[in-house]
Every structure is written in structure tokens, then in C-alpha cells.
């Protein structure tokens, strides 16, 4: 086992310390929700709709009840649970309620209609097959065009024109005149396919009722345990404290698990009702088709440029196909609103008009998949830049340079203030790297170079989330730090790691504050009983906001340790230094005591304390005001296209990114690389395809093409550092950047290689061959 090694100055933040999570995960001793077992546990399997739109006219569980091993069959009426209503407090948004089990209507293939409980997962599936559901089939709407047409069949009654939200977010009455007068107008019509975040672990939960603590204990593979608690409490009528949600080791989430799933609520309710542990594990087919999707969007955007390539105005419309329900609590408004608000991105846009639309279709609901709308808005802007460059006969990077924000703080026409970043510097270094490696000499004959230059909003605090007007407004985080009598520390956080290494990074922050060894700090998160409240991990908030709270709380405890040490060492608290597991007096190297000794005294010899403040515990909350903090990056890609097959090979991938202060460089690199892999997937490989009858056709990993190591090139990551002035640690979030830049950069590289103008992702071989054929 490698020992963690601090930096030369003894601090942990900034060091690539080995992850504390690794030994157990590598030994197969992780504890994922599916690994927790209970005596007498039962297994649930869901009966799901085979139709995209239908009325349910009857559910007959009689035969299923007779299947060996089946304990019960339950419908919506049997369970009597409330539904999940995700709402935005804005007139333009229409809320819908997602029943935990469909009662009268099914609205997408895979929607759960009934649940079977049995003594094994195998028997539960046997039982689910035997449930007979009668449907009156209806014609589904499966595209935005179909959904908003006059006379289109409604996905929900009370949702006019199948539109959850239709908002001219920014208006500018004079903007048409700007376009009329502009020397150059460039248009982009971009479309991105529906995707699955595809965490390797599907959704899982195990629920049991605990009489002693009068609560449901729910082990659940989630990014948002407190929000799961709220969802379960709401739908069952239990009080919040009567639900304990525990996210143990979670096998990835990427946003699919940052909303509350109806199945989790049903399983919890069953455990409560039956007074027996009930578990459920979604299989891959369910995960792909019947959980949550994301990113299916269409853009019609035009940009006006002056003769020097400077943007004069940006005008457009974004339409998001967000499926049959609003997911709780983010709602189906999240994609269109983010797209419209942040389209200008890293560029100065003097005049802006945009319309944001979120449309309901008879497909699975959507959740915020890593990057959410950012991969698409960046693709739109980066296509505009490349196209403008071609029109103007200029270098595409120079057109970008003419428009990148370079004077901070910058408040854009969208009302967002961007804190300092290194937009131009990252572009310069990325270009320099590719040039120095000789890629420009290899360009041509099927080899192209593409860039994406972008910023990434992270660390949304309460104020930023409040702009969205969600009923549940996330933002703050709370941390509690407690030192035990042996001098080791437990830190709680409201965040919920699912691969990001918080056990390590948050411990690095706390260890620096307390002057203890990294091994002396244990992070506990993901448990609603342990963290006073929290919002979980999504939207790149954990290092900034979670880290900020940990830093503040451990700072407070450090102050307390200094006060006690000062008393015991007969010095002034301001002269006490905590380092290397010891409290010492500045300027007196011989006068010091182990921090563990302070802890022992504080607990067992409290009569020696300077005051009557017992225990060694501190808590703090942290929030970021304003819009959040912006990381930035430039991706540079070299792509080779096989003109005979349409296949694309990525020859080189360089990322120059700036996320402020880096807590653990190795972990940051890992986040970038994993994000880029998902972005490449979106650019070239993945799409969740529905046919005209609303059947999800890409329903297994044979057809949903998640890339392997053969499709993902080595990725070089260079770091710049523009610290965040207000996150306490100086860190910005960065977990989504890799996914955000890749589709744009890859698409641009493919277009550069072929001289085409592809504006859809994924750019599959068929799409590429079609484009080449049209060119010929």
C-alpha cells in the first residue's frame, strides 16, 4: 500500500496522494448498495409498459401471484403513494406529476405499471412476466416536431402543445436590425442525440424498516441521498427524519442518479408496508431504456460578425426533447434554461436573443447528464467560429481570439458575471502544443484538426440555483468535523462521491487545516443521518462548496485545538501552529505536544480545559453567492477519417484546462479523461434511438455504443491555475469539462478533415459517408 506523501511544505492540498478509496475497491471489498444483504430479504421486479402511449384498462396479478417464489403483486392503487411533482416557480413552466407507478396511463416504453415481490430476483422476474396488463394503445409523439404540431396528441392533459416551457429568455427588439446591417451572418442548425449517462452500476436500492429508530433505512445508489429522502418522505407521507437514505459506494452516476427515481420510492414503500427488507437492482436494459436520458436538443442559431471577425449579435432557438415527465427535483426545464442562459459561453456577445423550449414526448424522462446543455451550446458556438472563419478567410483560432472574454470580471449580456479565467491562454497553449508536435503538417487527406474553447459554470450556490426557481433550491453544504479521543478525525459532508475521490480530496483539505496526517482523517458522506443536510454531488459543486464547508469546519476545530494547546503549553493561541500531527509554539521548537494528546485531554481530562466547552467538534456551512465560479478549457483534437468506411480515429487529444487550485492533480486528470471519453462517445458513437412507434431500439450495450479503450486515445492534460477568489480553497469545479468540450472539438476536427459541414452528433460512419457522397 503506497503511503500518501505530502508536498515539500507538508501540505496535502495540491499533492497527488493515492486515494483512500482504492484499497477496498481494488480488493473487491467495496460496499455498493447491491452488496448489502439482509436475512429474509425480498426482491422486487417491475412490470413495465411495452407501449409508448396507452391507457391502462386493467392489471391482473392473479397468475403472477401463483408463480413459485412470488410473495405479492402491487399496483398503484394497492400502494396508494403520492407522485413526484417537480416544479419551477415561473409562469412559463408547466409542472407535471410523475406517479411512482402508472395508474391510468403509460407515457413511455418501460414506464413501471406494477411491482412483483418474490424471494429471489429470478422468481421476481418470472412473476413480472406473468402479470397481465391490458392497454388501449394510443399514437405516441416521438419527435419535437410531432409534439408541438397543431392537434398533436397530448402526452399530459394540461400540458398545452406538449410544452413544459417556452420562454424567450433574452429578448432584444433591435437585434434584427443588427443582423440586417452586419457584413457576415453565419448560421448553425445543430442537433444532438438522446443519450444515456450509462453508469456501470445501474440504480439499486435495498430498503428496510427499522422499528427502534422508527425509520426506513434505504441503501441506494444515488448522487443525492437527501433528495431521495425528501422524495420518499413526500410520496409515503413519512416525516423526513423517518427516512434514512444511505449512498454507500456508488458505481458512477453522471447525473442519471442526481434525480429521484420512482422505483426507489416504491421499494422503500414496500419495505415499510411488508416490514421486510426489499431490494431492487435495475438491469442494463432497464437502465438504458427506462431510467433517465439526456441531451436530445436542436438548435437554430445565427451569429452576426463584423469584418474583423468580431461577434455583433447572437440569435437563436433551442428545443429540448425532454421526455414524458419532469424529473424530481430538477424538472425538465433544466436543459432548455441552461442552454439559453449560457449559450454565449466564453465569448463576448454584445446583443443576444434566444428562445428556450422544453417539449414533452412519449420517451423516457431526462435528468441532467454531465455537462447537461453545455456540450451542445459549446458545439454550436465552436461551429459558428469555424464557419465564420471560413467565410472571412481567417484562421479559426484568430476568430476565437477576437471574441474570447479576456477582461475579468466580465458581465455578459446574459446577466452572468464570469470570474477570472484563462480562456485565451488555454487556447494559445493548446494550439502551441499541437503545432509543436507537427500535426499541422499532417493535416489534409482525411486528417483534420478541431478545437473547442469554452467555460464551465461550477459551484452553483443557493443564489445561482435560486435563479432557476426550483421548488427545492440546492446550494449550500454543511460539514461537521469531530475529533475522537485518539486524535483521529471524522468529517461529514453533504456531498456524495461516486468516483470523484472525495474521501481523499476532502480529507486533504481537512488534514491541512488541522495539521494532521492524511491517514488521521476519515470522510463520511452520503448518509442523511450523518450530514445535517446536503445536496449531494452534481453540477461540479463538491470541491468548491463541499470543500469550502469542510475547510471552514475543520478551520473552526483547528482554532479550538489551538486554544486548548495554548492553555496546556502556556502560550498565546495565535502562536500555536498545527503541523505534522503536533501543536507547537512558533519560535520554540522544543515546546510541542501531539494533537492526539490534546484530544485525549479534551475528552478524558476535561478539568484541564481552559473552559467548559466540551467535546471536540465543529460544524460550518458554506455557500457561494453570485452565479458560481467558471472553469475553462480548450480541447484540441486531431482526427483521421477513413473515407471508405466513415470510421473516425482520433490521433491526438490535448486538453488545457484551468480549474483554479487543484486539490489532487491525479484526480483532476482522471475527471478530465473520463469526461472526454463520454464526450467522444457523444460525438461519434452513442445515441439512444427511438423508432416511430416510440420503441427504444438501442436497448442493450450491443447497440448503444459506449466506447472501449480502442476508441479513446491517450489524452494529454495541461493545467493552468486561476484561483477562485471566493471558494475558500481557491478551487473551481471541473468534473464536467471533459464532456463539455469533446463533442465540439471532435466534430470540428471531422469537418476539418473532410471539408464538410456536419452539424449533428453523433457523426456516425453512415452520416459521414452520406456527407462525402453529397460532396462528390
Amino acid at each position: 500500500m503506497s503511503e500518501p506523501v505530502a508536498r515539500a511544505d507538508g501540505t496535502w492540498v495540491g499533492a497527488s496522494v493515492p486515494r483512500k478509496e482504492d484499497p477496498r475497491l481494488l480488493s473487491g471489498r467495496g460496499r455498493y448498495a447491491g452488496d448489502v444483504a439482509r436475512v429474509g430479504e425480498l426482491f422486487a421486479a417491475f412490470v413495465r409498459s411495452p407501449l409508448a402511449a396507452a391507457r391502462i384498462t386493467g392489471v391482473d396479478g392473479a397468475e403472477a401471484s401463483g408463480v413459485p417464489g412470488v410473495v405479492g403483486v402491487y399496483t398503484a392503487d394497492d400502494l396508494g403513494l403520492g407522485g413526484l411533482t417537480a416544479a419551477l416557480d415561473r409562469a412559463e413552466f408547466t409542472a407535471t406529476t410523475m406517479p411512482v407507478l402508472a395508474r391510468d396511463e403509460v407515457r413511455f416504453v418501460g414506464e413501471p405499471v406494477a411491482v412483483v415481490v418474490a424471494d429471489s430476483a429470478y422468481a421476481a422476474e418470472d412473476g413480472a412476466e406473468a402479470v397481465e396488463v391490458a392497454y388501449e394503445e394510443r399514437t405516441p409523439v416521438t419527435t419535437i416536431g410531432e409534439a408541438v404540431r397543431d392537434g398533436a396528441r397530448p402526452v399530459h392533459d394540461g400540458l398545452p402543445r406538449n410544452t413544459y416551457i417556452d420562454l424567450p429568455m433574452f429578448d432584444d427588439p433591435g437585434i434584427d436590425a443588427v443582423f440586417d446591417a452586419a457584413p457576415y451572418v453565419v448560421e448553425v442548425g445543430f442537433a444532438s442525440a438522446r443519450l444515456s449517462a450509462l453508469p456501470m452500476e445501474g440504480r439499486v436500492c435495498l430498503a428496510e424498516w427499522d422499528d427502534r429508530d422508527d425509520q426506513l433505512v434505504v441503501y441506494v445508489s444515488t448522487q443525492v441521498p437527501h433528495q431521495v429522502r425528501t422524495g420518499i418522505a413526500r410520496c409515503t407521507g413519512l416525516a423526513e427524519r423517518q427516512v434514512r437514505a444511505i449512498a454507500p459506494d456508488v458505481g458512477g452516476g453522471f447525473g442519471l442518479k442526481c434525480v429521484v427515481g420512482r422505483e426507489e420510492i416504491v421499494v422503500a414503500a414496500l419495505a415499510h408496508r411488508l416490514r421486510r427488507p426489499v431490494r431492487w437492482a435495475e438491469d442494463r436494459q432497464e437502465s438504458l431504456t427506462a431510467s433517465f436520458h439526456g441531451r436530445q436538443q436542436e438548435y437554430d442559431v445565427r451569429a452576426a460578425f463584423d469584418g474583423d471577425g468580431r461577434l455583433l449579435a447572437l440569435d437563436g432557438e433551442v428545443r429540448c426533447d425532454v421526455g414524458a415527465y419532469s424529473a424530481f427535483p430538477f424538472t425538465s426545464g433544466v436543459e432548455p434554461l441552461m442552454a439559453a442562459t449560457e449559450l454565449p459561453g466564453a465569448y463576448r456577445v454584445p446583443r443576444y436573443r434566444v428562445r428556450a423550449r422544453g417539449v414533452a414526448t412519449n420517451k423516457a424522462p431526462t435528468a441532467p447528464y454531465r455537462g447537461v446543455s453545455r456540450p451542445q451550446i459549446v458545439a454550436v458556438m465552436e461551429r459558428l467560429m469555424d464557419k465564420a472563419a471560413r467565410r472571412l478567410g481567417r484562421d479559426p483560432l484568430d476568430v476565437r481570439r477576437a471574441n474570447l472574454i479576456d477582461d475579468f470580471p466580465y458581465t455578459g449580456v446574459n446577466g452572468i458575471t464570469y470570474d477570472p479565467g484563462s480562456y485565451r491562454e488555454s487556447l494559445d497553449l493548446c494550439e502551441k502544443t499541437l503545432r509543436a508536435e507537427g500535426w499541422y503538417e499532417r493535416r489534409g487527406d482525411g486528417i483534420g484538426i478541431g478545437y473547442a474553447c469554452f467555460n464551465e459554470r461550477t459551484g452553483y450556490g443557493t443564489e445561482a440555483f435560486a435563479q432557476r426557481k426550483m421548488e427545492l433550491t440546492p446550494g449550500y453544504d454543511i460539514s461537521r468535523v469531530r475529533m475522537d479521543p485518539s486524535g483521529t478525525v471524522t468529517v461529514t459532508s453533504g456531498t456524495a462521491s461516486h468516483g470523484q475521490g472525495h474521501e481523499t480530496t476532502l480529507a486533504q483539505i481537512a488534514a491541512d487545516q488541522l495539521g494532521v496526517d492524511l491517514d488521521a482523517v476519515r470522510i463520511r458522506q452520503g448518509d442523511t443521518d450523518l450530514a445535517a443536510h446536503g445536496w449531494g454531488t452534481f453540477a461540479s459543486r463538491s470541491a468548491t462548496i463541499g470543500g469550502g464547508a469542510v475547510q471552514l469546519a475543520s478551520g473552526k476545530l483547528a482554532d479550538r485545538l489551538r486554544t486548548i494547546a495554548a492553555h496546556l503549553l502556556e502560550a498565546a493561541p495565535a502562536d500555536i501552529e498545527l503541523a505534522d500531527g503536533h501543536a507547537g509554539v512558533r519560535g520554540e521548537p522544543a515546546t510541542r505536544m501531539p494533537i492526539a494528546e490534546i484530544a485525549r485531554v479534551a475528552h478524558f481530562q476535561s478539568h484541564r480545559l481552559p473552559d467548559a466547552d466540551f467535546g471536540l467538534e465543529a460544524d460550518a456551512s458554506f455557500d457561494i453567492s453570485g452565479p458560481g465560479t467558471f472553469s475553462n478549457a480548450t480541447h484540441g483534437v486531431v482526427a483521421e477519417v477513413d473515407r471508405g468506411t466513415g470510421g473516425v480515429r482520433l490521433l491526438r487529444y490535448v486538453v488545457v484546462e484551468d480549474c483554479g487550485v487543484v486539490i489532487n492533480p491525479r484526480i483532476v486528470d482522471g475527471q478530465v479523461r473520463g469526461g472526454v471519453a463520454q464526450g467522444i462517445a457523444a460525438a461519434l458513437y452513442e445515441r439512444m434511438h427511438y423508432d416511430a412507434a416510440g420503441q427504444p431500439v438501442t436497448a442493450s450495450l450491443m447497440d448503444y455504443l459506449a466506447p472501449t479503450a480502442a476508441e479513446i486515445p491517450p489524452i494529454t492534460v495541461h493545467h493552468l491555475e486561476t484561483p477562485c477568489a471566493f471558494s475558500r480553497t481557491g478551487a473551481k469545479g471541473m468534473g464536467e469539462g471533459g464532456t463539455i468540450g469533446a463533442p465540439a472539438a471532435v466534430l470540428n476536427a471531422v469537418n476539418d478533415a473532410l471539408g464538410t459541414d456536419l452539424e449533428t452528433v453523433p457523426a456516425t460512419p453512415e452520416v459521414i459517408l452520406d456527407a462525402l457522397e453529397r460532396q462528390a
Partner: protein
Amino acid sequence: MTEEYVQDLQPVTVTVNGTAHRLTVESRRTLADMLRHDLGYTGTHLGCEHGICGACTVLVDGVPARACLMFGVQADGREVRTVEGLASGDQLSDLQQAFSDHHGLQCGFCTPGFLMLAEAFLAENPDPTEEEIRDVVSANLCRCTGYQGIVEAIAATAKGRR
């Protein structure tokens, strides 16, 4: 109707990481489920149950096997190695250590499958090229890492063993 649900129970004697087990399972019980739920070796994970993702990879008589594509009864009389058998007590194997050193895991869910795949591969190919390593890594899916750390970890292990 009941004959459709014939519960066909089969005796299985299997050695897992050197420990002998005797149990009775339904013939349709996959090796993955038998290991995880009947024998408690929860380190082997299920990511797809149709043989694509490789998260469930174990070794059966030294040969890599996707445990979701085998029935437990097929392992009767065989020696199975799972991820739990790689470390010696608390001492991680060189391969496991390399995965940590090179950040070849994030959420850890796919990791046991990659470890067992690499074990089998390196036993047969002790001196692989980077291309050959990337080629074998392409057998399994990872959603978190982008694969680079995994490729580097296997390369470092091979080098260390030479």
C-alpha cells in the same frame, strides 16, 4: 402452468480463491449471482448481464470468463479466482497497487473485472506492447476513467514483473 417453473436444483462443489465450497443452486443461477449472493464474494459486479461490459470477469481454471455468461453449475469441480483472491491479506498485489498508482479506477465498479482480465492476460502475455495492452483493455467497459490509467497500470505491472 407449474411445470414451466421447474426449480432445477444442482449440487456444486467449487473452489474459490483456494477455499472449497459445497452448495446447491438452481441451474439457472449465473456464476456471478452464485458468487455474489450464495457465497458472499461481492467483489464481482454485474454491469450488463449480456457479456459486453466485462465487469463480472473472473478466472475459471485460469481462463477468463464473464460470470454473467456462465451458470454456477458449470463451475462445479472447477477452481474460480475472483478479485478477492488477488491481495495477500492487506497487501495489495503488484497489479492492484499499479491501478492505484496510475489512477486506473474512480468509482471502482468495473475494476474487479479489469483486474481479473489483466491477471489472465499477463499470465499468457508477460511482455505485451502498449498496443496489445490497449487491445485487451478494450474488452471491458469503463465509464469513469477514459481507460488511460488502466492501460498504464497494466503496462507498469508487466514491466515490474520482467
